C-alpha cells in the first residue's frame, strides 16, 4: 500500500492522518469479502498469526481470529491465565519462545500498559496491540472511525462526545488520538472522579453534564462502566451514575435525530444505555462489530505488506 511504512500497530500516535485514511479505504474493500459466500482471500496464506491474550476477551479475540482466517493466515490462540510473574517466567521469555517457533505476527492483549511496546522492541515478528491496560486499543478506535466515516460520510468537523469512565478506558484514549487527528471536535463527559488528569492537553473538551453535549453531538460514544468502580469509591452508586450519565429513550429525544450511538461492548444494559437505546435505530453497535473484522483484516494486510518488503 502506498505510503504505509508500519510493521507494528502499537497505538494511534504512530499513525498519520493519511495512514488512518489508508486503513479506512482498505477496510472498505475487505468488508465486502465478509459478505461473500466464500469469505476468504489468499492474501496471507502460509503466514502464522499468534494471539497472545493475557486478559479475558471474547469479541476482540474472535474478531482478530476471523480477520486472520479470512485472509488465509494460520492462527493460534495463547491464553495466559496467570501473570507470567507467578510462573517465574518473564513475559519476554514467553514471547521469545513464541518467536522461536517462527511466527509472523503477534497480537497481544495485556492488562499492563506498555507490554506491546516492549514486545515490539524485542521481537522480530510484527506486533499488534489488541489493548494494553488503560493505555491504548488502536484497532477499536480505527473501527470506530471507519463506522463514523461509513455512516456520516466524514469525520472532520463532526462533534463527538465520549461518555463514561474515561480514566480507565484505553478505548477512549485511542479514540481521542484518532478523532482529534482526523479533525473531529471531541468532548469527554463523565464523573469528575473518572476523568484522567491533564486530558485537556490532548485537544479535547471536558464536561460533567451529559445534557450539555446531547443536543449538539453527531456521535455519542459510550464506554463500559466496570461495576467495581463503586467499590473502589469512584462513585456513590451505579444508580446515581445511570441517572446522570446513562442514555435512555427519553434523554435521547434531546439529541440530534440522526445521532450515532456507539459502544465498544459489551454493553451493561440499563447502565450506559437502556435496552431500548442499545437496540434502537440510532445504535450502530452491531455494525461496529461487523466493521471490526474488516478493519482488522485491513491492519493485518497492511502490516504484512510492510513486513514482506523488509525481509
Amino acid at each position, binding site marked *: 500500500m502506498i505510503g504505509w511504512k508500519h510493521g507494528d500497530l502499537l497505538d494511534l500516535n504512530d499513525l498519520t492522518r493519511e495512514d488512518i485514511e489508508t486503513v479506512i479505504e482498505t477496510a472498505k474493500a475487505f468488508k465486502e469479502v465478509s459478505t461473500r459466500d466464500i469469505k476468504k482471500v489468499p492474501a496471507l496464506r502460509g503466514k502464522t498469526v499468534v494471539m497472545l491474550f493475557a486478559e479475558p476477551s471474547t469479541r476482540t479475540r474472535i474478531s482478530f481470529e476471523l480477520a486472520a482466517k479470512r485472509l488465509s493466515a494460520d492462527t493460534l490462540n495463547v491464553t495466559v491465565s496467570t*501473570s507470567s*510473574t507467578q510462573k517465574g517466567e*518473564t513475559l519476554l521469555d514467553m514471547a521469545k519462545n513464541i518467536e522461536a517457533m517462527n511466527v509472523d505476527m503477534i497480537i497481544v492483549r495485556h492488562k499492563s*500498559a*506498555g507490554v506491546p*511496546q516492549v514486545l515490539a522492541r524485542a521481537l522480530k515478528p510484527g506486533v499488534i496491540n489488541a489493548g494494553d491496560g488503560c*493505555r491504548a486499543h488502536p484497532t477499536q478506535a480505527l473501527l470506530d472511525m471507519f463506522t463514523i466515516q461509513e455512516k456520516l460520510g466524514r469525520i472532520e468537523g463532526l462533534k463527538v462526545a465520549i461518555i463514561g469512565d474515561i480514566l480507565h478506558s484505553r478505548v477512549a484514549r485511542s479514540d481521542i488520538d484518532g478523532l482529534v487527528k482526523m479533525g473531529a471536535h471531541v468532548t469527554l463527559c463523565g464523573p469528575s472522579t473518572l476523568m484522567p*488528569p*491533564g486530558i485537556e492537553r490532548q485537544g479535547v473538551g471536558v464536561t460533567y453534564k451529559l445534557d450539555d453535549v446531547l443536543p449538539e453531538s453527531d456521535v455519542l460514544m459510550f464506554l463500559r462502566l466496570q461495576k467495581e468502580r463503586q467499590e473502589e469509591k469512584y462513585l456513590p452508586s451505579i444508580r446515581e451514575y445511570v441517572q446522570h450519565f446513562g442514555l435512555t429513550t427519553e434523554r435521547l429525544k434531546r439529541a440530534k435525530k440522526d445521532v450515532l450511538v456507539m459502544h465498544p461492548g459489551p454493553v451493561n444494559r440499563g447502565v450506559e444505555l437502556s435496552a431500548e437505546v442499545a437496540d434502537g435505530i440510532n445504535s450502530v453497535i452491531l455494525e461496529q462489530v461487523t466493521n471490526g473484522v474488516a478493519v482488522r483484516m485491513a491492519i493485518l494486510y497492511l502490516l504484512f505488506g510492510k513486513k514482506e518488503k523488509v525481509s
Partner: protein
Amino acid sequence: MSILIKKAIIINSTSMSKEPQDILIERGSIVKIAAKILDSADKTIEANGKYVLPGLVDLHCHLRDPGFEHKETIETGSRSAAKGGFTTIVCMPNTNPVIDNAKIVEGILKEAKRVGLVHVLPAGAITKGQKGEELADIMELKNAGCAALSDDGRTVHNSQLMRHALEYAKMANLLIMEHCEDPTVSRGSMNEGFYSTLLGLKGIPDIAETIIVARDIELARYLKTRIHFCHMSAKRSVELIRQAKAQGVAVTAESCPHHFSLTEEALQSFNTHTKVNPPLRTKEDVEAIKLGLKDGTIDCISTDHAPHAREEKELEFDASPVGMIGFETALGLAVRELVETKCITWSTLVEKMSFGPAKILGLQNKGEVAEGKDADIVIVDPQKEWVLKEEEIVSKSKNSPFIGQAFKGAVETTICSGKISYQAQ
C-alpha cells in the same frame, strides 16, 4: 598503614584549598595537612591537583542482606558504594527478616566489618516487622548499633503511632527517617498527571508525599522533636519544608540524584528501570528540588540505591518492583546536573553528599578533610569523562536507567578508615 596523598586540592563544605596540599593518613585518621609533607608513608598517592573530598555519606540505601541476596549482598553493595566514593552508608531495614531486633543488627554489622570497605550503619525499623502496628524495640536497636530508624518503603500511617515513635525515638536519641507516602492515596506506578494519562498507568500523585510531609511537620512542631524526610520528590514538599524550617521546626530532608536528573517523561519508553518510588515527577518538581538543594531546604543527597535482579525488572511495568541502583552514579549525576549547570559549587556538593548527612547522623569525625578527622576520603578527577557501561557496574544488580550515559568527574580512589577501598584502573 600510612598513606601520603601528594598535591591534592582539598574540597570541604565551606572551603576549597587554593594551592595543592599534601595529606598524611595514619592509623585511620588524617594526621597532617600541609603544602609539603616530607614524612615517609607506606604508600604515596600522587593526586596531581585532583580533588580530595571527605568520603561520601549516604543516608539511604538498600543492601538487601539478609533475605534478598540475589539482588545485593553486604559485600557487593559495599564494593559498589566504595566505587561510587562512599565511605559511610545507612542501609534500610526492609530486609528479610526486617531489621527490628538486635540479632539482625549484629549480623549486619559483623558482616560489614568482615567486608571492611565502607562503614555500614543500619537503620532499624520504627515498627515491628515494618507493619505499622506497634513500636519496635527501639532502645534495643539503638544499643545494638542502629544509626537511625525508618520503616522505609512504608509510612507510619497511624498518626498516633507516629507520634509515639517520635517521642520514644527522642528519648533514645535516634533520628526518625520517614518514607512519606500516604498508602490510601498512592495506588500506582508513576507520577499522576498528563503522562500517566497518556501512558495509561495508574498514578501516584504528589499529595501522597505531601500529605505525610505536612502531617509530620506538625508532629515535629508539636513534639518539639526532629524528623528527617527520605527521598523528597515533589515541589510542594520542598515548599512545606522551607516554610517549616523558617518557622524553626527541626526538619531535615534528602533528595535522590534521579529526582533532580529525570522527569516522568523518561517513562515513555516503558523501561522498568525508570520505575521508582517516589516516582519521577515533572520538570517543575525537578527544578524545585534543585532550588531546594541550592538554598539549603534540602540538606543532602541520598542514593536510595535499590538493587533488583534482572528477571524481576524484566516484567510488565505494573508488575516490576520499584527502585534503581544509585551508588555508582550519584556523584556523576550530582556533578553533571548540579555542578556543571552552576546550580551548586563543589563545596556545596560536599555539604550535600558528605558533611550534611554526617551532621544529620551526628558523626562528628566524618564529613570533613581536616587534621584529626577520620581518614574517610575520596579522590576525584573532576575532568575525567566516562560512560556508564552495564558490564562495569559492580553492584550485583544492573537496574540503572543511566546505562549508556556520559558523565564528567570520576572517582579515582576511595579510602575508608585509612585503607584503600576502591582504586580505579
